[in-house]
């Protein structure tokens, strides 16, 4: 599993570069779509931030299993002895590292371009981003493995993923909004619980059903 993780990391250089440029382009699009009005921008900033995270996450996650396909590694994955949930965890860990790198950079770009004041909110924000990212990656890894075998997979993957991620998106955006207004972490406790519950559900289903997906 750790070895798979490393392989994912090494080959993901191409994915990582493309994702970073994608995020940068996204930032410009947001700016152009909303105009220079600072007040309005500040109001929608948490939503934009998570839109950026989710869109780059969808692109990154969607690629996770395509690479296996291109090089005929799918069969090798199927033949791997032992517990298939280890493959799930390995893929998940690889995607998490990738997403964490992209998200850190996107956050930094937001601070620079949109003049966000993160001071004090950073630990809480880190927690929210961590919980949200685990949720996105947990269900995303599962769905990516499923859609890798389907027709029109590039289209099907976000169509499956986005409606399922609505609770995660709402929770993270609302919590981020409150934290950026310098509210204490306790004020978003219910959102944190919801995100944690979502993470537990998605991870449990992923671990339990992944061998079913890798059957053939």
């Amino acid at each position: 599993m750790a070895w798979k993780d490393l392989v994912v990391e090494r080959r993901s250089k191409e994915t990582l570069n493309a994702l970073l440029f994608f995020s940068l382009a996204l930032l410009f699009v947001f700016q152009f779509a909303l105009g220079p009005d600072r007040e309005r921008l500040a109001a929608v900033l948490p939503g934009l931030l998570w839109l950026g995270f989710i869109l780059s996450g969808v692109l990154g996650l969607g690629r996770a299993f395509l690479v296996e396909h291109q090089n005929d590694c799918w069969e090798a994955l199927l033949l791997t002895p032992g517990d298939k949930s280890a493959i799930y965890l390995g893929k998940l860990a690889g995607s998490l590292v990738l997403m964490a790198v992209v998200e850190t950079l996107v956050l930094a770009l937001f601070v620079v371009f949109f003049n966000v004041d993160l001071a004090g909110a950073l630990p809480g924000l880190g927690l929210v981003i961590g919980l949200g990212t685990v949720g996105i990656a947990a269900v995303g890894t599962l769905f990516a493995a499923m859609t890798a075998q389907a027709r029109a997979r590039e289209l099907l993957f976000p169509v499956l993923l986005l409606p399922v991620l609505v609770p995660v998106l709402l929770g993270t955006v609302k919590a981020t909004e409150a934290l950026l207004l310098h509210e204490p972490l306790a004020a978003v406790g219910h959102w944190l619980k919801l995100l944690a519950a979502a993470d537990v559900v998605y991870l449990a289903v992923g671990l339990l059903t992944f061998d079913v997906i890798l059957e053939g």
Partner: protein
Amino acid sequence: MTTLLGWLAGFGLVSGLVMGFGVAPREVIQGNVQRIMYLHVPAVWVAYLAFIVGFIASVVYLARRRDAADRLAHAACEVGTLFLGVNIATGAIWGKPTWGTWWTWDARLTSVAVVFVMFLAYLLLRGAIDDHERAARYAAVLGIVATLNIPLVHFSVYWWRTLHQPPSLLKPGSSTMPSVILTALLVNFAALALLGAYFIARRARLLAAEEEALA
């Protein structure tokens, strides 16, 4: 057996109509428009019941690998989506004269819409995988995720709109509803539940015939 279910559903629908239009009184403020509730509310109950059936059938399919369980899951999720569609459509028709708008991003409307889209995606996945056995496995996994996601969607959307703890499903205050209206509602619920069961049974049989024809 299925035919009997069909007749029962037909009988139920007739008595539902009689209860809804005949026995139940005209609502004082909204007038006759309110009678759409006898279709609107039971439809969403039946839809969620169907999703629960689909969830159980999906779990059974993954554990036992019986084709019948897969067909039941497929049929139940399809019929559930249909009833949810009826619920949304009647809600819009009801909303126009009473709220003055077809649609509003209210907590309940939003959560039902999200669940609707989730199960549309489920049906889409079924159609997008050529291998029958693989489609069954993947759909079962997605069905489980989608059903478990329903409570998460409800909580998140509720907090998103109100910030307050949601009332429990069967709150004690619901007995304010006059008993005639409640009876009419329950009769219609029974009728639609029978209709849903009939649809599911017919759909499952059609799926079996399809498989036989393709095999």
